[in-house]
């Protein structure tokens, strides 16, 4: 068995693949680097696969916390791991939009290899953190944000890209009587706009897919498509794509 672990800023994800590269376990724990989230997620995945750590032949760590995780045989960046995961799950994809807790990136693939990528600057604009803050202001669970946005009847623009300023902007909108649903959709559009700018910098390809926790927000995926004027789909198991990629790398490294 081969294990991939993706330790992000707000969650830890683990995937295990077997000799035939089939995913036999995938777990997400909402605790990121600096917590014991990595160990908890790993144990949960081992339990799901019905194995122990001794059965694992090779471990690849990725994500923001990859260098601090001492059980890994090797560390590979989330850029390569997302590319590898997507290549396995959606082989014909050539553009990946990954929005995670504290970063957003767009990766261009050519022949399955990373050709170019761009990541957000040192700033939370256009990342999952932005939506977290928004859902707090809207008093909604992050996972319900999409359903709420679906009820929107009016396009409301959030003009600030800065998370802190956007928060006060939204509070003023709500105080002015704007509907929660419209604000929720506005937040999705704000991210979509920002990330679409990044897509244009690296150039979008023919098939665009989304990974990362934010891709669970269906309304967000549709906002992204609307902004780009192109079809965008969420990769199945979007949260664990990086971990799956890492597990496949573990398989390949072991058999090299």
């Amino acid at each position, binding site marked *: 068995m081969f294990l991939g672990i993706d330790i992000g800023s707000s969650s830890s994800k683990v995937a295990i693949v077997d000799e035939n590269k089939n995913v036999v376990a995938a777990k997400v724990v909402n605790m990121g680097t600096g917590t014991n989230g990595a160990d908890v997620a790993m144990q949960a995945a081992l339990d799901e696969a019905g194995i122990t750590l001794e059965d694992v032949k090779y471990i690849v760590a990725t994500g923001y916390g990859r*260098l601090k995780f001492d059980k890994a045989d090797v*560390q*590979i960046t989330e*850029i390569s791991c997302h590319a590898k995961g997507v290549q396995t799950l959606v082989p014909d994809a050539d553009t990946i939009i990954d929005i995670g807790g504290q970063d957003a990136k767009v990766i261009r693939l050519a022949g399955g290899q*990373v*050709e*170019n990528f*761009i990541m957000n600057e*040192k700033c939370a604009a256009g990342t999952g953190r932005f939506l977290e803050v928004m859902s707090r202001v809207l008093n909604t669970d992050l996972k319900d944000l999409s359903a709420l946005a679906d009820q929107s009847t009016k396009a409301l623009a959030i003009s600030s890209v800065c998370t802190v300023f956007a928060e006060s902007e939204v509070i003023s909108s709500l105080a002015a009587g704007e509907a929660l649903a419209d604000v929720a959709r506005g937040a999705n559009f704000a991210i979509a706009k920002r990330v679409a700018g990044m897509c244009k910098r690296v150039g979008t390809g023919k098939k665009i897919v989304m990974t990362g926790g934010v891709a669970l927000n269906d309304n967000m995926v549709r906002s992204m498509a609307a902004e780009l004027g192109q079809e965008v789909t969420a990769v199945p198991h979007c949260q664990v794509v990086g971990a799956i990629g890492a597990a496949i790398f573990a398989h390949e490294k072991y058999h090299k």
Partner: protein
Amino acid sequence: MSKTSKELLNELVAKHYEDAAQAKKDGKLVAWATSICPQELLEAMDITVVYPENHAAAIAARKHSQEFLDQSEGCGYSIDICSYARVNMGYKDIQYSEAANIPMPDMVFCCNNICTTVAKWYENLATELNIPFILIDTPFNHIYDAPAHNIEYMRNQIEHAIHQIEEICGRPYDYERLTEVMKISNETAYWWRRACFTAQAMPSPLSGFDMFNYMALVVCIRGKKEGRDLFKLWCEELEAKAAEGKGPWKEGEEEKYRVIWDGIACWANLSPTYKILKKYGINVVTSLYPDAWTILYETNDIEGMAKAYTYYHANRNVDYVAATKSQRVKDFNVDGVIFHSNRSCKLMDFTIYEQQRRITAETGVPTVVFDGDMTDPRIFSEAQYETRIQALVEMMEENKKKKAQEGK
């Protein structure tokens, strides 16, 4: 035993600051000048020249820049302004740093071939300190070659500056001395470039971060004999190392990847930026700096001098810069390019994405961009830097594999 160039370098840097302080005490004139200005004009009249950008870098490298940034920001200078300017504006008020000191100026001398920020920055210095402001206004080269009217415009300004200097010094211009300084400056430039180009050898005898160190000196003693001799010695050492097949680091530390570092070093974060590269076996073999001080022209040719100064790379169009970088990739056997997106330096940053696109299209090597700043320590993030560098390594590795397969 004779000294190594490194020992000499440290001595000369210290001496540069000491001499400047002494000159001030002796009542000599001191000028603050921009890094790639026609310093020959001042040097020839025995004016002591110090360089605020360099000084700011020295302060930042010793982790003392924050104090000066706070001072100037407190005066209302925005964090969006170049941090060299902010450190220097702060220094103008505080006038002392544990890291390094420069004497207060009797005049400022500014050539805006490096950016437009410097013109306002120096104008403010001149106004606040109530001292003369000499400006050599250098038009940006939107087209490949500088048009004749630009060169003429510059030549006229250089001649005007000579009159201004005569007035400030109260004596006629020393053209003989100018000839001599021009000659030395050109020789220094020659050795500087030749030393930097030893990095073409595989492995490179030169570590790019060493180049940054020596660069500090080429800025300040370009017109002095000691400078020329140092760069000649350094070049000879490097050529000897290359002949023996020695790499940039200690024995056993392999140069695995050769990259171009585009932009200024992160002086305030020098150690992590260097160590992370070294951890992955990445050596910076070149940048556009080898040419930045390669100001070559015939002695006594003011027009040639004008042209040389207007051709500083950041003052030339995207076509020129992209073509030069692509050529460097080929000439230095480069595997990848690292772009420092420097919050301070808009002029250097604003073409990065286009540069990336063209270099990859022309040469096929991967590139990455990271966010940082040269003297403001608050901008750089070590984890984000490492992720980008490691991703570059992964892309360079794939490229190598592909090439090896194609070669079979």
